[in-house]
């Protein structure tokens, strides 16, 4: 439940439905945007910008997965394959046909969306965890197709993809790409927020919480499940398109199964079933990656007796343990903890 400072009343339903109600929140949001688009890039170096870029792409992909898994309750462990479809679509279009970015982005979204439609179709019959495994099957099939795509995907050779060119400016530096990725990520987040507060979001949650009752209430479950798959894939496609243009080179190895599983995992760590949770998940995912990469050589330095590979094994263990700790201490995700912090902040100085 949203708690509000006293003295804020809703006079219309439109006001009640909106997210930003108080001038304070408006101000907070403004500050956030200023930080994101002006403050941060002003002071950050390429390294930090690079981390944020990867986080931004992950946020987009994670938002899609969150709508499918968090809201609609369908587990997907083939998400990275969809990102791959988006990436390869845009790379093929820009490499073979020379399409510009503003054309490859929607095409990647559409193609991946259609793919999602195809993957969603078994949802007519398959339920529960079995649907997760059907996405796993699609993962293998998609990767197989990419690998054997001949000249189209340059299967084993790696498909180059030019950097984005928008309005005559080539976005080939971290800083320029940063703005594009952040615009897409923020837009994606806003759209997701909007989607989940309308009938679609409610229908997804209804199906997740009680699919039988939802059907009694006149929901065409199959349609909404497929829709969830499509929306999820469109997000993945957009993320893949950004990824392709950002990375500049695609190989099939960039879309390993384990990454899909980690996407799922960090969605849970972030807080499944809430948009902010997905954003948190993306942040935690990429930041833990960084911490582990930082820690590896560092531990090697402090304990010279350990060889590099033992250190790597140790950091891998650490990675797993951090996640286990997260889960055991806060199984409802970072987002839940964040909400508690927020509400105690709002109610300060009163404990209730």
């Amino acid at each position, binding site marked *: 439940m949203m708690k509000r400072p006293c003295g804020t009343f809703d006079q219309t339903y439109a006001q009640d439905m909106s997210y930003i109600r108080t001038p304070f929140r408006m101000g907070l949001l403004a500050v956030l945007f200023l930080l994101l688009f002006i403050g941060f890039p002003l002071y950050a170096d390429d390294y930090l910008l690079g981390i944020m870029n990867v986080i931004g792409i992950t946020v987009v992909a994670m938002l899609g997965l969150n709508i499918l898994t968090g809201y609609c309750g369908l587990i997907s462990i083939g998400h990275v394959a969809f990102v791959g479809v988006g990436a390869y679509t845009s790379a093929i279009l820009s490499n073979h046909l020379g399409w510009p970015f503003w054309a490859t982005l929607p095409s990647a979204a559409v193609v991946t969306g259609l793919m999602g439609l195809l993957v969603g179709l078994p949802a007519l019959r398959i339920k529960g965890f079995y649907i997760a495994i059907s996405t796993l099957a699609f993962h293998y099939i998609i990767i197989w197709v990419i690998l054997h795509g001949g000249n189209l995907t340059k299967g084993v050779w790696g498909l180059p993809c030019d950097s984005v060119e928008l309005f005559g400016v080539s976005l080939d530096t971290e800083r320029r790409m940063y703005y594009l990725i952040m615009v897409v990520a923020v837009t994606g987040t806003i759209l997701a927020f909007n989607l989940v507060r309308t009938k679609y979001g409610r229908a997804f949650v209804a199906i997740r919480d009680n699919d039988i009752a939802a059907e009694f*209430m006149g929901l065409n479950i199959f349609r909404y499940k497929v829709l969830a798959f499509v929306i999820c894939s469109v997000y993945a496609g957009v993320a893949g398109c950004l990824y392709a243009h950002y990375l500049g080179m695609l190989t099939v190895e960039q879309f390993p199964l384990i990454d899909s599983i980690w996407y799922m995992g960090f969605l849970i760590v972030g807080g499944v079933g809430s948009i902010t949770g997905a954003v948190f998940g993306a942040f935690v995912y990429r930041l833990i990656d960084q911490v582990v990469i930082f820690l590896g050589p560092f531990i090697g330095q402090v304990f010279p007796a350990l060889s590099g590979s033992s250190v790597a094994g140790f950091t891998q263990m650490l990675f797993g343990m951090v996640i286990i700790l997260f889960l055991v201490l806060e199984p409802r995700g970072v987002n839940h903890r964040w909400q508690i912090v927020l509400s105690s902040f709002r109610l300060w100085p009163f404990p209730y």
Partner: protein
Amino acid sequence: MSVQEFVLSVKDLSLSFGGVLALDSIDMDVRKGELLALIGPNGAGKTCLLNCINGFYHPDRGSIHYRGRPITGMPLFKRAHLGIARVFQGIQLYAGLTTLDNLMAGAHYFIRHGVFSALWFVGKAKREEIRQRRVVEKIIDFLEIEYARKKMVGELPYGLQKRIDLGRALAMEPELLLLDEPMAGMNLEEKEDMARFILDIHEERDTTVVLVEHDMGVVMDIADRIVVLDFGKKIAEGDPERISKDPRVVNAYLGGEA
């Protein structure tokens, strides 16, 4: 009697699970605007019958007509679109949504906007959501659950959850409301409230109601007509007074020779 007067007519309905005959050639009509109570001992097939009407179970034999239209093979969700609403025996709410959203989810069919407008939340989506919100707020007022409006339903007490379940069914703007033991597990006060709501819905909104209930007192008080099931068979039908005197009904409830 012409077909038009029946909201629902069930003919020769049979359903079996494995070898067990759950429903055995049931014939039942529901007249427009009446409050029909469906009673019978546990396991008599009442919920099964409702499930068949809703389309959750598909009968082995027989037909169901809704306002003269055959709906026997129609999928579950489409029947809901026709105006058949259901209140469940246990708690079947969407635990992850607020009371308000549960009701809005009930009104799903009436909110008509596309994904794209929903994504941007402008124009049609916004208009439709606000319009439906008004309707839902009226239901919230009617059921006196304003204070729970923005609470997650999973956290609310049982009695309230049942009321929200009823509210969600009302949000579907039903023409035929199927209530499956709406008062089970309630205390006397809550039962009275619930009975009052059912009567109000029935009378003010002119909704046809089929009520499954074990509390004979309530049934006798509010029902226009009663159908009695036992072991999947219809054993009696008639107004409350006649049913209360019917020896087969008494037998079925008290046991003994039929």
